[in-house]
């Protein structure tokens, strides 16, 4: 009998390598600003940034919390809704034939072009903003779910039915786990996009939140304040992405795909 073959290789990204690039960027920034090569209105220096943080320290925690919860709510609802629609399209021919054309019509519409209509129809409230993020996310995931289901190897589905599984069970135990590795890319793209959608949603007339405060900083030409908010957004976006990758690594531990990188 053959020995157990372990194909999975754990390749960790070397920390020093990824740090070098960041350090270079910081160094260039320090040189440019401390030597006053450019006007601080365009690129503010470290003191300016520190000053902005101190001035905004009372509003930032609440604004961050507000933007974070709104984005997560929109992203979560949008993901579930999108996957559900994709699954329903694959499950029911009737659903696909009736609802499909509506989705085909909505999908190509630039989501940001919908902002005025959203404001007109639903008013500038939290619900509208969350719905806006959710719509943007669900469109991406609906299409990806449906397309991933079409690409599942037919033999798995046949084998499951042949072993006596009901249609519901085939969807739950074969189709969902089978499409997950394909969905994860779309989920990560949607997660990144949902921060952008959050900024746009807050431009729609929120009274708190990071996006709203960004406009205030812009009005007063406080570039340092804008950069601080951009950095907060970046940190949250990276944290969300890392969380998704953690979950992915556990859920897709059965796949072999890591082996195909850098060949």
């Amino acid at each position: 009998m053959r020995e157990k073959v372990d194909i999975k290789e754990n390749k960790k990204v070397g920390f020093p390598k990824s740090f070098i690039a960041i350090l270079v960027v910081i160094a260039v920034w320090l040189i440019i600003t401390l030597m006053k090569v450019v006007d601080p209105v365009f690129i503010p220096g470290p003191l300016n940034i520190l000053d902005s943080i101190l001035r905004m320290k009372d509003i930032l925690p609440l604004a961050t919390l507000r933007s974070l919860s709104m984005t997560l709510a929109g992203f979560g609802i949008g993901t579930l809704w999108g996957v559900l629609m994709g699954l329903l399209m694959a499950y029911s021919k009737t659903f696909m034939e009736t609802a499909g054309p509506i989705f085909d019509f909505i999908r190509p519409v630039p989501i940001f072009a919908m902002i005025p209509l959203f404001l007109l129809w639903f008013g500038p409230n939290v619900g509208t903003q969350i719905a806006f993020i959710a719509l943007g996310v669900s469109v991406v995931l609906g299409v990806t779910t449906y397309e991933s289901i079409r690409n599942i190897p037919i033999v798995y589905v046949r084998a499951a039915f042949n072993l006596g599984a009901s249609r519901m069970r085939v969807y739950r135990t074969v189709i969902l786990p089978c499409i997950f590795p394909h969905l994860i890319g779309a989920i990560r793209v949607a997660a990144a996009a949902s921060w952008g959608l959050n900024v746009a949603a807050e431009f729609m007339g929120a009274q708190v939140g990071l996006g709203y405060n960004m406009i205030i900083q812009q009005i007063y030409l406080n570039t340092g304040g804008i950069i601080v908010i951009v950095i907060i957004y970046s940190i949250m976006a990276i944290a969300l992405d890392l969380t998704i990758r953690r979950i992915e690594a556990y859920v897709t531990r059965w796949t072999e795909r890591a082996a195909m990188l850098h060949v």
Partner: protein
Amino acid sequence: MVSGLAKDDEKEIEITIKNLGFAYGLGRNKHEVFNNIDLLIYRNEFVCLVGPSGCGKSTLLRIIAGFVKPSYGKVMNKDAEIKDVSFTRAVVFQEDAVFPWMTVYANVEYGLRSRNVPEKIRRDKVIEHLKLVGLADYVNSFPRELSYGMRKRVDIARVLANDPEIILMDEPFGALDAFTKESLQVKLTEIWEKHRKTLLFVTHDLEEALFLGDRIALMKTDPDTPLTMYEVPFNRPRKVELKTDPIFQKMRNNIMEEFRAGDR
């Protein structure tokens, strides 16, 4: 040499195929795969369906499994016409059908769980059948950690654990290397000799068919040629040495000869 419908009155019939035809496409694009096929399969008999690639043997198996509807004619399982997929007619596919996202244990348990068999019985059956195929030590492994041949054994265990009445194997060893293939043939023979079931084995490998089967049904590329049946005279239990036996070789050559003569 006897026709596919020559009936042996002492044996119980499991599957009756009568006047069965299959074609795909319509009008000028219509392609006939086979016409007027007749075949009887008895209970607990090992029948091998042999033929060149593209002759329609896998299609015939899929019709018996219930995945594909025939163009005309009927397939009867005892007295009931086969119209749908059923766990009583279990298929071992040529492709790797073991679910890679489930452990070996969960794979073998899948059919039993689908049929709501109680946990206690499930556990016993899974362990019993993993032992049978020699994989009891790999209960918690994921399929990617196993070799292709081992995964095929998981597939066979999964099918056997589900208590089917008929097993349909569609070139299960077709993608294996010669060594693994032979060891799996021996394993399958051992298992089948211990736990007899009605088994239809599709293959393009005549030697494999002679080693495994009680009877061989030869299918030709021409859609209008009926199946030719051969009785395989070798006693059981069969050992791997049988393959080098002169009678075995002679029989193989005779069938091959006949095949070449008819298949132009």
